[in-house]
């Protein structure tokens, strides 16, 4: 009993890491399967990051669409990140976070565009930000935000 109390710090820490690993990886698995399913559904909807030129009268409406996603790191990934930051190298633990945020943001933007009846999105842009004011401070969990925005257009199909 005394041993447990003496090492309470360590036990809490290990518990948080285990919780972070179990919860974090199950959330990631579910998110990825949702992303893949929705990407497949929206496969036919065109998105491009090129500035597009259309012939006169071809475009009906043009409007801004945007989608953003915020993904938080978990305690396990944070530990991996801290350890990695000592020796350097690719922070593999964070790569999937940014990837998920990016794809989720684009998916949401596409959903918005499709909901408004657009035929395609041109001029797609992505921006990222770390949020949680103290993202890089000690003891705080940071999150990454990705916002995707572009010009949705409807085409006069005649």
């Amino acid at each position, binding site marked *: 009993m005394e*041993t447990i109390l003496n090492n309470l710090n360590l036990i809490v820490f290990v518990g948080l890491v285990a919780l972070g690993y179990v919860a974090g990886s199950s959330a990631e698995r579910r998110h990825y399967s949702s992303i893949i399913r929705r*990407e497949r559904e929206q496969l036919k909807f065109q998105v491009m990051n090129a500035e597009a030129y259309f012939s006169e009268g071809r475009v009906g409406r043009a409007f801004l669409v945007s989608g953003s996603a915020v993904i938080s790191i978990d305690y396990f990934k944070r530990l*991996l990140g801290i350890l*990695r930051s*000592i020796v350097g190298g690719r922070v593999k633990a964070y790569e999937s976070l940014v990837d998920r945020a990016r794809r989720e943001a684009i998916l949401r933007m596409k959903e918005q565009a499709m909901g408004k009846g657009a035929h395609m999105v041109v001029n797609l842009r992505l921006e990222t930000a770390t949020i949680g004011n103290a993202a890089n401070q000690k003891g705080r969990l940071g999150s990454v935000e990705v916002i995707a925005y572009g010009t949705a257009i409807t085409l006069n199909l005649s």
Partner: protein
Amino acid sequence: MKYTPKELSENVNVSGGHPLVELAWLAGGLAAIIAVIWLGLFLVAELVIPRVPIDVEIWAGNRLLSQQAHRDNPSVTRVLRHLLAVLPGDSPLRRYNFSVTVAENDTVNALALPGGRIVVFLGLLKQVRSENEMAMVLGHELGHFAHRDHLRGLGRGLGVALAVAMIFGRDSAAASCATNLVHGLEMRYSQRQERNADVFGLDLLVAGYGHAGGATGIFSRLAGESGGKAAYVLASHPHPEDRISALKKMIAEKGYRIGAGQCSPGKVN
């Protein structure tokens, strides 16, 4: 131009590999680095500490501890004087100017501080029933001085604390992990030191009082209060029962006589 949507089957943006494998590599590597640092400090301490002149130690001890309140306890000091009187003439311990301080604290422990100062906590003093038991406690601490354990622990502790702070930053979760790991290593070593100090204390007790009575008394009282042996795997001291059996074995091997302890209750408190 015809637009042909294509599904991407692979994701180049996320590296493969299981995260637990990565954790094992990173954590294992760092643990190895810390173990190497500890081992290095350990070796340096083993080489340097026995060569630190006692004068230097006394000087440093006085510098470090001059502000500490000194509370003398005449009866404990008398036991200490008695033990010091029976030290062999060529013992390096003779060059120390020992003093005993009683600290108002319920901790059941005693400390050997650099420069020849012994601190006995009130919690331990309350457990002592006879002069011989007090002599065993003091003899044990003198053993630490004789083996210079008090300097070893100090040197390694400081070195590791510095190394951990430099690698991980002052108080991060990783630092506490590393400190715990080092603490484990330290404690295993510390238990060996305690056993050796027990041996020294027992010999001194017999030299001073002619018999080994009271050598195990304090430990048997502690054994009643302390928990199971599992709790002692990472403790700084061995389990009291282990210490008792080691002492009894030694008493039998060396053929020491066990006489009655000189009971003088109230005297030490």
